[in-house]
């Protein structure tokens, strides 16, 4: 057997030979392998943020900690968004199911995990508390319950047209968030089941399992490696908290790799072929004898379960959680990541997550603080009107200060603009143009294989 078997081999195929822009040189080398594409994109983000941090803080031993800190944030968010974008790609990119309730399914995962594995004595009154069961059990159940919630949404909605599924999922996601927000629900679960969601006061979550490493002697001696003696002074290059965060991000990347493997297997299989057919034209798939209902239900449940898991890895690992973490904007962000990367491509989902987190999510803030650090800005005007006024009196600083001060809200504007440009100029995203043939084998005319 001389053929390659997609989905079984290491990443590296999937690119069609007529990939115009990948002909030669470094870019050509990169595009030969999906792993290289992801690696180079991630590496260039690390470089970019190194430059940004150094521009802000200048060269120095103190900056090492800030640079690594920026990498930490980047890695953590990248892994989180990549898991969610992959799950959404299964729904939207592969099967064409317009799920705009990603945040809701994340919330189900996180809250199920919290209620089962969360501490049973709340630190302050009114906060959520759980049953104190082992964490692994909570994580598995969180994933499973998110999948089952998907089933509840899917069974009535999948009989309707695609846009109704969107409305159902958005509505469900908001219902879940509002239930988690409700004080009455929290009181009721407290009295009925012996756990409480905590309402708006949120939930103290179980520690990350990786935290245990840093309490041990071996862990501590590893941390001490990053404290060096320079000119007689003890300098801590990287603080323990950042090392600890990084160790968790590594766990997330392991999960990400597993999920990528799973979805790639699905993509390159007869099952994935039916999913694509459903996306392209469901009646054709049915007329060829495929019971599309089951395919859709299975895929919807699987995707929702992965969203629940993604939520646990991300929001469930940050010490506390409140219902505010699951606003619909999160779903919107995941969609942007997926669209940038190229809906329909698993590798594209991962690349899109890196670019979204790096360029759109983190970079504007960094640039803002660089400008702030350099321009020595005075206090920013309070309103846009005042800012314009200062501009009229030829005081550019006031206007810039206002601009920087409002970078948070402006980020939404930037995101919207980027989305419009991408959808108009390159709707297929970074990698969506590739032909990733859904089959377990290479479909080139086979040699007579015995």
């Amino acid at each position, binding site marked *: 057997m001389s053929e390659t*078997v997609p989905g*079984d081999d290491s990443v590296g195929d999937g690119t069609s030979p007529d990939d115009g822009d990948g002909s030669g040189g470094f870019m050509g080398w990169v595009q030969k392998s999906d792993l290289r594409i992801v690696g180079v994109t991630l590496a260039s983000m690390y470089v970019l943020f190194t430059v940004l941090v150094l521009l802000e803080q200048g060269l120095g031993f103190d900056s090492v900690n800030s640079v690594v800190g920026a990498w930490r944030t980047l890695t953590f968010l990248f892994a989180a968004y990549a898991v969610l974008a992959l799950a959404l790609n299964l729904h939207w990119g592969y099967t064409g199911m317009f799920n705009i309730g990603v945040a809701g399914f994340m919330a189900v995962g996180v809250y199920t995990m919290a209620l089962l594995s969360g501490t049973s004595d709340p630190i302050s009154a009114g906060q959520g508390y759980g049953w104190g069961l082992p964490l692994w059990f909570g994580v598995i159940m969180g994933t499973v319950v998110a999948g089952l919630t998907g089933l509840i949404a899917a069974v009535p909605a999948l009989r309707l047209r695609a846009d109704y599924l969107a409305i159902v999922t958005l509505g469900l996601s908001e219902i879940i968030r509002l239930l988690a927000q409700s004080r009455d629900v929290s009181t009721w679960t407290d009295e009925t089941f012996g756990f409480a969601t905590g309402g708006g006061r949120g939930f103290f979550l179980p520690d990350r399992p990786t935290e245990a490493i840093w309490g041990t002697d071996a862990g501590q001696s590893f941390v001490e490696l990053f404290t060096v003696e320079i000119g007689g002074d003890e300098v801590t290059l990287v603080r323990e908290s950042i090392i600890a965060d990084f160790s968790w991000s590594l766990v997330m990347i392991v999960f990400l790799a597993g999920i990528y493997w*799973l979805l790639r*297997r*699905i993509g390159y*299989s*007869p*099952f*994935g*072929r*039916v999913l*694509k*057919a459903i*996306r*392209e*034209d469901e*009646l*054709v*798939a*049915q*007329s*060829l*004898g*495929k*019971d*599309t209902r089951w*395919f859709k239900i*299975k895929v919807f449940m*699987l995707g929702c379960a992965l969203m629940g898991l993604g939520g646990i890895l991300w929001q469930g690992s940050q010490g506390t959680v409140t219902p505010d973490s699951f606003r619909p904007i999160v779903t919107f962000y995941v969609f942007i990541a997926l669209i940038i990367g190229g809906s*329909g491509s698993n590798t594209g989902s991962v690349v899109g997550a890196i670019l979204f987190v790096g360029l759109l999510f983190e970079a504007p803030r960094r640039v803002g603080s660089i400008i702030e650090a350099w321009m020595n800005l005075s206090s920013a005007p309070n309103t846009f009107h005042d800012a314009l006024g200062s501009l009229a009196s030829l005081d550019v600083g006031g206007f810039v200060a206002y601009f920087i001060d409002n970078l948070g809200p402006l980020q939404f504007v930037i995101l919207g603009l980027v989305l419009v440009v991408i959808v108009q100029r390159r709707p297929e995203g970074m990698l969506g143009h590739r*032909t990733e*043939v*859904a*089959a*377990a*084998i290479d*479909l*080139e*005319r*086979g040699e007579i*294989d015995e």
Partner: protein
Amino acid sequence: MSDAAADATEAPPAEAADEADDSEHSGPPLEVRNLRKLFGGIVAVDDASFTVEQGSLTGLIGPNGAGKSTTFNCITGALKPDGGTVRFQGEDITGMRPEQVANRGLVRTFQIARALPEMTVVENLMLAPQGQMGEKLWRSVLPAARDSVVTQERELRERVWETLEFFEIDHLAHERAGNLSGGQQKLLEMSRAMMTDPDMLLLDEPMAGVNPTLEDKLLERIHDLREDGYTFLLVEHDMDIIMENCERVIVMHQGSVLADDEPERVRSNEKVIEAYLGEDI
């Protein structure tokens, strides 16, 4: 499974079926009785009844709005009929879902070719075969079970390439289906339908928008397949094609069957001529 169905073009299901199924069902494979379909107040199909004989190439014609496509959709499950029965090989298939109808060996193509545009031509054909093990999620994912999926994929690939050659679109194999011309998409649709290993094919205007060269090719294929024992029901707008190629013609008009006869006798049928407003048929 694959050996028996190794080649859609060489293993005529009907001949094999003749020996096996004759005891159960010897009548015509498709029987439509008093079929009715309403759209609001409009009666699209009004008590239509007809049968299609085993191994025949039967034409279904009628002026625009006669209810041909609606009849097709009611037979194949794309629409639920409001009354009447459809029987396929003796089994009542009235109101079944499209995939249930297809799985019983009654497979259709569409009036406007519905290729799966973002999928390649080979991918389109690989989709069609029934009973693919890899359509079970766990088999596609679990390492141990995946081997059997890969084996079956290899067998299917053989059949796919043979079918592509038979329809002479093998040079387009890796093209995205959406890039094909209208006529090529019609060929793709028919080869894809063949890959399901059907007993009977319902072709909804297979020649519409097809250039004369491709049209001849398509007709040639249909005749080849018919000689192999497949049954065809053909909706067609073009009278000449129907008259020259079909041995029986069903004429629909205003939702009902107006005539059901040999082409020559249909041609001279007063009612048919009237329905076509003196058009030359």
